[in-house]
């Protein structure tokens, strides 16, 4: 990795400069992660007096556990649903805003602020709107003949958390799509127009392929977001229910470890999550390396 061509004489100073970052990282990141690895091959008795080494037992229990398998599939549906919904709406907005010139900044302002709303708050907002007794949307849905109740219906609960999670993330995707659209060379679109391509055809054959690196990048980011940053949405609203229908992995690990005090079992779940983050980070950085080469 590069430094500058000439550098300051080293001595103790550079160590002092990295020390704060390093100490915090070691104490609050590396050490606990190591602990999670150790705990994942141990079992504690209910009072925490004794720990025994159990090898990969926690992991085999994990993958034999129907509740965990359920959490995996729930997380998958949630992540894919959130990503698709949020990205498609954001792309539509970005394409529309990109057509305008004078009002571009105005619409951008109106569309970016939900980024600032915490996931938990986003959850509570939609939880309120969808409130089966007084909520405005169930009222409308009822007129259309649909009996909405996320307290009892697994599907309704999943739709609720996906909408809440996607709503907040639209801003982020919108900003990146808009930046991507603005970097598409105008001459290309004009050339396609001269070649007789209709606006729709121009978008799908010229613009969208050029956006594919950004689309891929956003997909990874959105999946990471849906898997790891949405704890607040679940915790503040459905609490994983009804009947485990919205029990995503990060919520389950919290419940099992922190509330259920099932340390070894939760640690094994942490290790699985760690593996997922590492894979996603590697994919993301691969993409960045490729982008740099363009």
């Amino acid at each position, binding site marked *: 990795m590069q430094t500058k061509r000439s550098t300051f004489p080293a001595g103790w100073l550079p160590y002092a400069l990295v020390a704060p970052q390093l100490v915090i990282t070691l104490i609050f990141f590396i050490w606990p992660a190591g602990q999670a690895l150790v705990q994942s091959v141990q079992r504690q008795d209910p009072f925490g007096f004794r720990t025994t080494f159990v090898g990969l037992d926690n992991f085999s229990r994990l993958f034999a556990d129907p509740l965990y398998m359920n959490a995996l599939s729930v997380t998958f549906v949630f992540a894919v649903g959130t990503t698709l919904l949020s990205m498609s709406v954001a792309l539509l907005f970005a394409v*529309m805003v990109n057509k305008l010139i004078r009002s571009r900044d105005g619409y951008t302002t109106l569309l970016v602020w939900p980024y600032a*709303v915490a996931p938990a708050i986003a959850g509570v907002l939609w939880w309120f709107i969808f409130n089966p007794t*007084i909520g405005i949307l169930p009222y409308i849905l009822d007129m259309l003949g649909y009996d909405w109740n996320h307290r009892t219906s697994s599907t309704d609960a999943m739709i609720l958390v996906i909408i809440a999670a996607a709503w907040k993330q639209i801003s982020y995707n919108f900003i990146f799509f808009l930046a991507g659209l603005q970097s598409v060379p105008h001459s290309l679109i004009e050339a396609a127009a001269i070649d007789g391509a209709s606006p729709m055809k121009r978008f799908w054959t010229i613009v969208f392929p050029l956006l594919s690196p950004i689309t891929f990048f956003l997909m990874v980011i959105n999946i990471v977001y849906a898997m790891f940053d949405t704890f607040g949405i679940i915790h503040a609203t459905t609490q994983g229910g009804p009947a485990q229908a919205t029990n995503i992995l990060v919520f389950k690990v919290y419940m099992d470890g922190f509330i259920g005090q099932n340390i070894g079992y939760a640690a094994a779940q942490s290790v699985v999550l760690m593996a997922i983050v590492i894979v996603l980070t590697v994919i993301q950085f691969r993409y960045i390396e490729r982008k740099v080469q363009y």
Partner: protein
Amino acid sequence: MVENRPFQTFLTHLILILGVAVVVFPVYVAFIASTQAPGTFLRGVIPMTPGAHMVENYSAMLGTGLRRAGAPPIAGQMFNSLVMALGITIGKIAISLLSAFAIVYFRFPFRIFFFWVIFMTLMLPVEVRIFPTYQVIVDLGMLNSYAGLTIPLIASATATFLFRQFFMTIPEELMEAARVDGAGPMKFFKDIMLPLSITNIAALFVIMFIYGWNQYLWPLLITTDTDYFTVVMGIQRMANAAETDPQWQLVMAAVVLAALPPVLVILFMQRLFVKGLTETEK
């Protein structure tokens, strides 16, 4: 513009106005709800026009909170959120600037190793190491403290990378000229690097402030004393309580208050926000 048909422009505006309406809708509903009288939410449907109890509801939340739900006054929680957001933001920027400066402007043993250690933080979000991190906080006696709320979250690979990236674009000769001019490393850092980094620092400040304010799981883990609750995590208790005791006008006042500061930051610093967002992902 390849084409400029009035109808198309009209359609574009129509779609966008509808889109903005959908995006704004939940917050509008929340605001309307926060102006209603007590008892409005016992039956029927949420009203769609403002009520007359805005001042009353907001001052009730700021001053007394929701006692029955075990939620202290919002004012104190907002102060805690502010301390946490500022602490995390300033801490992250400070230690990231220093470590990026060391990594770019010095050559020393273990430099690459340190870089990778910092990189690892990207792969270890709180969510995957909840319990052991909690134990560390307990062992260090940092439960229910501002130090516990901030210090463990200020390690940041993203910020360090951003500053490293930016420092690499600064011409080599600037540092050499400063050395010839008699500036040591820290003087160079203070006189040249800090002023040149101002825009990047500001952009990062916006992103990190939002990040810090919106923390949820972390304060949930390490605060049990209501004096240290932050407003975002405090909402959950009230929302759950409202399921049985529907004082939604108060809960929504709290929601609006909790969302307001970071939203204002984005609205007033949109350009810096967009810059911060797009640059931290490079």
